[in-house]
């Protein structure tokens, strides 16, 4: 048996654009084990290659998505701010972070457990469908933005 989610966290999740307007029972279900967490500037939210057990609803601040290697300086490819979602690796096997994520401003987040949300989506396909209709544009926008970045418009 799990403890009831913090009502403040449930309320905050329900007010985030990703969940706003969705069934209150669904919001309550995904809020299980969800927490609020703050990150200081330069604090890391995710590390490439490590298990993506959570995802973040950013409520304030800014997070840089970075990619890098030992022989190359880290490159920020996108920033995510208030009202946005950080992380989709929790949804897609093998559930490992594809990027590093670092706070570039003092950042407040709601941390949702990927396993809890996956289980809820699987048990309630209608909620699952409605949620994915909300979540897919996040992925689609990131894909489109990456394509435009690849055009390197300003290089001409």
């Amino acid at each position: 048996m799990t403890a009831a989610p913090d009502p403040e966290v449930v309320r905050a999740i329900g007010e985030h654009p990703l969940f706003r307007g969705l069934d209150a029972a669904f919001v309550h279900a995904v809020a299980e084990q969800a927490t609020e967490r703050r990150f200081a500037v330069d604090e890391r939210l995710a590390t490439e290659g490590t298990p993506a057990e959570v995802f973040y609803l950013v409520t304030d601040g800014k997070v840089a998505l970075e990619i890098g290697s030992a022989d190359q300086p880290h490159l920020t490819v996108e920033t995510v701010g208030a009202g946005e979602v950080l992380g989709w690796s929790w949804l897609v096997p093998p559930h490992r972070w594809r990027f590093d994520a670092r706070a570039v401003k003092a950042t407040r987040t709601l941390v949702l457990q990927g396993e809890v949300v996956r289980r809820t989506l699987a048990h309630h396909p209608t909620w699952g469908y409605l949620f994915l209709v909300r979540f897919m544009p996040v992925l689609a926008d990131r894909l489109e933005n990456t394509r435009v970045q690849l055009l390197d418009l300003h290089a001409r």
Partner: protein
Amino acid sequence: MLAEPPPEPADPADEGHPFAPIPYAVRAVAAETPDTVTLTVEPRGSRRIGPPQPGQFVMLYAFGIGESPIGVAGTGPDGLLVHTVRNVGRVTAALTRLTPGDTVGVRGPYGHGWPVAEARDRDIVVVAGGLGLPPLRPAIYRLLQQREAYGRLEIVYGARTPKDLVYYEEIQGWRRRRDLRLQVTVDAAGREWYGDVGVVTTRLPDARFEPSRTTAFVCGPEIMMRLTAQALVARGVAPEATWVSMERNMKCAIGLCGHCQYGPSFVCRDGPVLPYSSLAKLLPLREL
């Protein structure tokens, strides 16, 4: 009876000939980025071009090399002009090598600029990509001069990397103002950059304006302008109120030669600033 001989063609070197450049002296050169400079020029004598309106362009002549259409980035007293030039070819390479005291030819101003006066009482969204900011700069200052005549003022500026941002000091000044809202983003950055990263359209959802009473001024690479205009229109801004500045191969600059023809328009004469409503079907076409 013999026909009347045709009149002698006017000598382009004659004062008043539409192709005769007016000599201007370079007063100052400021490096913006490794390949971009801002030139401040002033008339060498009493002749000068008419006062440019925000968004108009001039033909800058590097003597002995050629002319290039360059947007007016600023004006000042006594006919002073400001142009920001990026080295992308033979003429612009010569222009970016100019030093104070050198002479450059100027003719213009040409075309239709931003409809700043027509946008009174409306919210204004200015979206600039890369070197799209210089042609917007006079419009921004015109808006700020008459700030109370307009609603919200949102500026979104995107560049390739932080080192490609132009007017860096000025931008810091705009950031401190309370009567406008500025978002600056770059396509990619290292860890020294704590600002936004992402293409310029990613910042539009954060821009605050009332779409039904908004006029947008957009300038940058063509694909960026298309995507930006689409995003603004999707948010409810009227296509007729979404203005973009087209760049084409302007030669004569007075609607004679046709080099800059774009669909039914000559960009030099009918533009460069045109409403998105007249371009929406043309912008996705290739090789137009």
